[in-house]
Structures are given as structure tokens and as C-alpha cells.
């Protein structure tokens, strides 16, 4: 099987790769959001302590 055939997914490329792409995005967002929230929280609390 050539690489081109692999990506063509027998004509279903749009459906298959959109599914996998969306899943990847959702799973990544779930990991990134807590990291951002943690940074925000630490910054806020640090500001409060300075006052």
C-alpha cells in the first residue's frame, strides 16, 4: 500500500481524517486547559499575597 493510498482511505479520507483530527484537538484541549488554569490561579494568588 502506497502512502497516497493510505491517506485516501478508499475514498473516505474526509470522514476518517476529520474524525481523527477533531478527536486529537478535543483530547489536547482537555490537557491544556488545566495547565492554563493552574498558571492563572498561581498568578492571581501571588498578586493577592503582595497586597
Amino acid at each position, binding site marked *: *500500500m502506497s502512502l497516497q493510498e*493510505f491517506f485516501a*482511505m*478508499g*475514498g*473516505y479520507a474526509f*470522514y*476518517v481524517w*476529520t*474524525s*481523527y483530527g*477533531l*478527536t486529537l484537538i*478535543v*483530547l489536547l*484541549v*482537555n*490537557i491544556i486547559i*488545566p*495547565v492554563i*488554569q*493552574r498558571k492563572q*490561579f*498561581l498568578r492571581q*494568588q*501571588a498578586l493577592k*499575597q503582595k497586597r
Partner: protein
Amino acid sequence: MPWLAIIFLLLTASGLYGGLYLAPPDYQQGDSYRIIYIHVPSAWMSLFIYVVMAMTGAIGLIWRIKLAEIMSISSASVGASFTFIALVTGSLWGKPMWGTWWVWDARLTSELILLFLYLGVIGLYGAIDDKRVASKAVAILAIVGVVNIPIIHYSVEWWNTLHQGPTVSKLDKPSIHVSMLIPLLLMALAFKFYYLIAVIQRARIELLKRERNAQWVKSMLLEVGQ
């Protein structure tokens, strides 16, 4: 945590290699069936996480254990994500196979209600400022919603539906070939590990926020500040 991530990545890599490359195309559905490797594990996770959320919610409700409350609400967003993935990938699979993105049949509708239950839990928790009270309210909602879980599971047997019947859980003789089954189970296991990673991440920040006035958080903040 790094170990969980490594196990998750190894399982995902082998699952996707087996599912997207090694496994042959389906004799009826061609290559479109390969969506199964994320659709079915996501749908399983959406049910599994809901039960975990309701059970930890009940434990928090009965024994007032803070950690159970935190695990319960931290599960909600991960569960909602998997439910969303199951619905969207199902739609993307339904379009080429059934000719429609969506039908209001039992399986699809009950899974959509599951998404609304998750969103209800998240919204309710956010609406109540006292997080211990919020956890009580959310636990009750989650427990009542458990009634939806068997409905989703048996919907393809109880009602006529476009959705295909179970192919894996017939343990005596699964009607899926082993070259397709193994990657599917690998992906299911990978998603379990993903859930562990994601829920721990969420629980950590939730714990920090709740205990912001506790001594250990304050001393941690001092270390970070310096």
C-alpha cells in the same frame, strides 16, 4: 504522570498502527469503518466516566469525602469530551454509510441526552459558589442521570434503529475479526489511561482552588513566587 503518558502514547501508537494500517478494509464499509477505533472507545468511555462520576458523587454525598467530590466534578469535563467525540465521529461515520448525519433514533438521542447531563453537571457546579454545596447538588443530578446509562447500552436491542447492534460485547463469539478487534481493545485501553491523566490534571487545579486558604497551598505559592 509521565509513566501514564508513556503508556497512553504506546497504546495509542500500536492501536492506530493496527487499526489504520494492518487491519484490512471492511467487506461492506470499506475504509470508512476505521472511524470505529475512536468512535467506539469514546462511546464506552462516555458511559464508563459517567458511572465513575455518579459513584464518586454518591461517595462524596454520603461520607462527605472531599477527594471523592473533586474526582466526581473533574470527571465531568473529560466525560463530556468523550461524549462529544462519540457523537461527532458517529455523525461523520453515519453520513457515508447511512446517508445522513443524524437520525432521532434511540441510540443517538440517548447519547445526546448524556451530553446534556454532563453539561448540566458542569453548569450546576459552576453556578453555586460554595463548592461543598455545589458538589452535593451535582452528585444528586449525576445519580438521577444514571438511569440513562442502561437505556443507551440496550437501546440498539430494545428499539429498531439505524445504529448497528453490538459486535464486541457478544463474548461467546464476537462478530468482529480478531485483526480488527485487537486494535479496538488497545484504543479502549489507551483512552482509559488518557482519562486517568486528564482527570488527575483537572483534580489538581480543582484541589488548589478549593484549598486556596490552606497552609500547604500558601507555602507552595511562596515557593513558586520566589
